[in-house]
């Protein structure tokens, strides 16, 4: 029962995020980056449901466009981490021995290497921007995927159907593709939803440190950064991006949990 609830709430929040992101491609109440000096820090009114920021820009439109950055950030980061981490995990899970050791040591190092420094280095070399920040975060979260898929692969390889497949004359790669990957997919999906959430938080943190999205494109992290100095005079400017980030991350985590609970039971046995 609980898994259904977290699946529905999580799903709803994530859907809201996706819809806002897609909608913002086409329409936003106002032009998110249009500066209007006459309406600086205007309180919420009909035209601007969430009021305007220091540059007189409509906060709601910026939030909507920010959603697009968040989705983009998450997809890039998780994509890289997935494509890098999972094969590493499967190979080291299946082969064991020195290769397994090497992969684990590399993932330890990547874990230890501060993702932030990686982001700074990449930003310094390729210029600041959401993409470089997300590549850095993707690389930093790859070890997470490697560890999760390695553990799942070890569990699968202990299954007797793997021996049966070997007896059926299946090559190692065929076993990996047909048997291992489908069986670790559920764990990977859950890891993806969790690391999507971390990617969103990381993009916010990097923008906060001035490394993430390039202005004037709004990202929730940069909106927080810009409103930090006004925290004491107009605190709500901080509130909206903060709440949005929290809602997106909450949605992703709940979705992840819902998936994990829903998928696990079928694995464990008789219906």
């Amino acid at each position: 029962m609980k898994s259904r609830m977290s699946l529905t709430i999580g799903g709803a929040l994530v859907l809201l995020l996706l819809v806002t992101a897609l909608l913002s491609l086409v329409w936003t109440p106002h032009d998110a980056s249009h500066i209007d000096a006459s309406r600086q820090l205007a309180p919420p009114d009909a035209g601007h449901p969430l009021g305007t920021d220091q540059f007189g820009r409509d906060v709601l439109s910026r939030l909507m466009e920010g959603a697009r950055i968040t989705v983009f950030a998450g997809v890039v980061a998780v994509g890289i981490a997935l494509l890098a981490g999972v094969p590493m995990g499967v190979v080291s899970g299946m082969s064991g021995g020195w290769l397994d050791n090497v992969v684990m040591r590399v993932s330890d190092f990547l874990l230890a290497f501060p993702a932030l420094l990686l982001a700074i280095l990449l930003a310094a070399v390729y210029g600041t921007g959401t993409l470089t920040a997300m590549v850095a975060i993707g690389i930093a979260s790859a070890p997470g995927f490697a560890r999760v898929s390695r553990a799942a692969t070890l569990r699968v390889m202990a299954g007797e159907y793997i021996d049966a497949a070997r007896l059926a004359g299946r090559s190692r790669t065929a076993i990996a593709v047909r048997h291992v990957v489908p069986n670790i997919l559920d764990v990977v999906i859950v890891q993806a939803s969790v690391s999507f959430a971390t990617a969103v938080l990381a993009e916010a943190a990097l923008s906060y440190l001035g490394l993430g999205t390039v202005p004037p494109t709004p990202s929730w992290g940069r909106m927080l950064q810009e409103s930090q100095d006004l925290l004491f005079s107009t605190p709500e400017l901080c509130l909206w991006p903060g709440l949005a980030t929290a809602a997106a991350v909450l949605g992703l985590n709940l979705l992840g949990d819902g998936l994990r609970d829903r998928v696990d039971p079928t694995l464990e046995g008789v219906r």
Partner: protein
Amino acid sequence: MYLIVRKTLTLLVGAFAASFVVFCCLAVLPGNAAEVALGTNATPDAVARLSEEFGTDRPLLTQYADWALGLLHGDFGTSYVTHEPIGPRVADRFGVTLWLVAGGMLVALLIALPAGVLSAAWHRKPRGTLLSALSQAGIAVPAFLAGLLLVYVFAVRAGALPAGGYVPLAEDPGEWARHLVLPCLSLGLVQGAALSRYVRSAVLSVQRQDYMRTARAKGARRWAALCRHGLPNAAVPVLTVLGLQLSALLVGAIVVERVFVIPGLGDLLLRAVADRDLLLIQGVVTVLVVAVLVVNLLTDVLYRVVDPRLRSR
């Protein structure tokens, strides 16, 4: 004992490999220390002269070799920009970050252990779902937002706690503590929420084990059985997560250091990169990497203490 020696060896090799990779990454960084130091009146020959003085014109390998040799006997080299030895400065800053991370981890544990155990014990009841929903919400709050809100509530509104800055322990323990409360809280809050979810799933899986039923059959009451028999076994999976969380804490610390303006390693790292002070960056990153590897070693050792089955391997 043999195991510990082997483990520390791999740690050392890991640290040096890490420092070499870091050095290569930094070499790729555009702009160099001399250019930055000279600022707007950098003329080509002035840059050349200063680079020679800094030693940054030597081939990369020799620079790394010098640095690595120095490191062996504890000398982190001197930073070109501030002409001070790096070692003490990094050590001082590392101490600050260490307090912050330790405080953050303490807060995280204080939140996670009770929340995790309770939400697992009550997992059928509404209270349980409420608690785990709260922990869900906790994860969703970015560290710097938590920091900003805490500053707003406690420093600005109530004025009870300082809004930022750091007072070293030796200087004034009272002040030191007061200055660390908010940063540790904001760092620990987020990690605590995440950790409580792992504790919950660990305790849940332990509750289903057969030895719990044996304990109850012995006459132990529900809670006594959970604490005496459940928790030690739940400790193992939680320990693995603790190791991972510490590296997340280090990153979170960098952000929190900026919100609460604490002179920690994060702040030093950001400035070092801005000044292209390669040796300082190298020093900071190596210390960070070694710290995380040491933590991994500790968690390994703790495994063996907690779970006798692992002692033989």
